[in-house]
């Protein structure tokens, strides 16, 4: 199946996929490198936005070319991740804020 791809498409697909994977990797690296929770919380967004876009684009391109028609269903994944990930992060941020405040943590956020 993969054999049906022309070289340009293969290059493009691989380029997009690698770029996406790299961005995600950087995001994951941020999860490790950044120093505390409120900083770390920004890192996974890389995976969930640009990393995701690029990989989804690669996938869409791959299957569009392979199947000879426009395949956009992977875009749905991107859409849903975009909508749902913030819910998690937002709740997590809020939860962390409560917990830090309750414990009198020095880095606790101020009341709004």
């Amino acid at each position: 199946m993969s054999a049906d791809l022309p070289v340009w498409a293969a290059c493009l697909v691989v380029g997009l996929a690698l770029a996406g994977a790299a961005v995600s990797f950087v995001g994951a690296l941020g999860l490790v490198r950044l120093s505390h929770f409120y900083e770390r919380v920004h890192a996974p967004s890389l995976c969930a936005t640009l990393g995701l876009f690029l990989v989804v684009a690669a996938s869409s391109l791959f299957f569009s070319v392979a199947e000879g028609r426009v395949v956009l269903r992977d875009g749905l994944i991107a859409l849903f991740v975009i909508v749902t990930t913030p819910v998690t992060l937002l709740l997590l941020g809020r939860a962390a804020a409560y917990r830090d405040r309750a414990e009198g943590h020095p880095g606790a956020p101020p009341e709004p």
Partner: protein
Amino acid sequence: MRRLARLLPHPLLSFGLALMWLLLNAPVTPGTGLLALAVGLLVPLSLRALRPEPLRVRAPRALLVLAGRVAADVVQSNIAVGRVILGLRPGERRSGFVHVPLAITSRAGLTALAIILTSAPGTLWVQHDPRTGRLLLHVLDLDEADWPARIKARYEGLLLEIFP
């Protein structure tokens, strides 16, 4: 009109779901088209019991502008945060909380803003007080921009237009 509203309480949602169905079941055939129509008509009725505030989008143009802006900002902040993670950002970096006074009060508008801010790397929606309209935001790089001003300038106006 009222009858249409009862039949199609959430037209935008109906459209979205039908589109979703078509995307999932591509390539489009008459059969899937018919099913998509059914999905668009029937599934939103499932919301009837939950009684959410109906979603009305007022300014389609503003929506497009906003989408473009968000896309650009997301890419930009991806790069910015990536640099921070990789240690490529020169100089001292401070992260911290900022308060942003918001004029938006609609549920949809706030939700859209929360999604935008939280999706974009570098900003995190932490807490919003509907009484005062104040938003507590965590920012990875405080020096990158004047965050309250930037948010109000780039998003709030458009959002107020879209979701009055």
